[in-house]
């Protein structure tokens, strides 16, 4: 599960994909998760980092994280498998 390395982020939550020109906006926690993913953190590590900082519980975050990564996938912000990479090129 890797996020595309070339995604540009701004502190205000602006997300830009230079290969497609698409832009997105995310909230502070979303920005933090994307940053952690760019640092090649695993899902487990992301969860630990978030639970340490935010007032939430394991189950809630896991559900929301799963949903968030799903959206990143849908928006083509995650690295895809070899064959998908070809298909989009």
């Amino acid at each position, binding site marked *: 599960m890797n996020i595309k390395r070339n995604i540009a982020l701004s502190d205000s*939550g602006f*997300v830009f994909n230079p290969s497609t020109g*698409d*832009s*997105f*906006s*995310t*909230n*502070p*926690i*979303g920005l933090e*998760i994307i940053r952690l993913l760019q640092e090649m953190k695993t899902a487990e590590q992301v969860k630990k980092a978030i639970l340490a*900082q*935010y*007032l*939430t519980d394991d189950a*809630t*975050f896991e559900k*929301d*994280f799963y*949903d*968030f990564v*799903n*959206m*990143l996938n*849908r*928006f083509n912000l995650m690295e895809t498998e070899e064959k998908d990479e070809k298909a989009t090129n």
Partner: protein
Amino acid sequence: MKKIQYERPVIQRLNAGVMNKFGTKTEYAPVTEIDGNRVKDLITKFGSPLFVLSEKTMRQNYKDANRAFKNRYPKVQFAWSYKTNYMNAVCNVYHQEGSWAEAVSGFEYQKALKNGVPGNKIIFNGPDKTESELRAAIYNNSMIHIDHLDELYLIKELATEMNKRPRVAIRVNMDTGIYPMWDRFGFNYENGQAWDAINKIMLNDKMDLVGLHAHIGTFMLAPSAYAVAATKLSDLALGVKLKYKKNIQYIDLGGGFASKNTLKGSYLQGADSSPSFDQFAEAITTAILNAGFGESDLPLLILETGRALVDDAGYLLGSVISNKRLADGRRATIMDFGVNIMFTSFWYDHKISPAQEFSQYTEDAVLYGPLCMNIDVIRENVTLPPLKRNDQVVVHCVGAYNMTQWMQFISLRPAIVLIDLEEKAHVIRKRETLQTIESEEVLPAYLKEIKL
């Protein structure tokens, strides 16, 4: 280290240059209070979902409407349209302000009488008036608005039988430039039916033709259409004066002024695009004043305004049951209220506000009700902060038609609370119980036993 308040991560695509048609900024602003009552407290006390009515807004709307017309015309009378909201508490707020009553069924007529409205201040309208209902209306000197010829002949017979002169008006339908034209009620102006009906009443001389009535449509956004209607009714009234030397006492222009809601498919928010009472009043009164009446012959102007007086006084409070992701990636939020109690969600994109503080980040979502039905959609597209289970929302502008057209379907109907001018909350209709629903059911004895 103190932990940060958690909010679910959200990400949204930004579409440069494309207007976001799914909501406006103002929708995200939380509404935590209604007339000094915290939303949270109201839900704790009276349950979720919950209808809330602001007496302050109802009275203010009435005063605004009344002033707009009275500033421009000497004789104005409002008649509360019962079908718009016939909770007795609501009716009596308007009756206290001076409204007469407009009923379109025997049931509504009885409600008006029971609320204390004198019979001669009730307008009895609608296509379905039974013989006994008409007898009561004649006996009580109510204004009977005749919808069709069968009714006209029946009233004539009853007048003879009761030896009493009924006070009648005819309902007139007409082309006001508005499509679709409502031509199924009353008598048509352009093809001469209305004038025919007037002659039948005047020549027969068994009843008093006291008024002329038109209700040209619903959620009207064009004041000019009312000017056309007022001109056509005035023309008929002047025709009666010319031919029979009799004054028509009143012209009743019905209801239909748009409320502050937003019609589905409209890009403009209703609050910005609906004409004001002043605009409607200007169009209507100018048309009547210019029609050619002598100063002492000016008819009373009756208005049966419903939605524009009560819609924005009504709120529906509700809670989030769950969040889902649809197969196409859209966020779906399931609320504890559905189209069964929010009938108007079929016509309007109701404004919905969160009832607690959020950051400014938002998501586009579909809002569903809790019914096991595909049509149970509250908003097809709404932009809201990331809501989670048990978060609360406030739906705006639900005071008109929801508390009369709601269905008891799958779930029980919620309580209705009225917040008075001192900001005290009164239950004006209790939350339904199983007993409420079953009180009218009869189970045949042989079906009482079941063995499984």
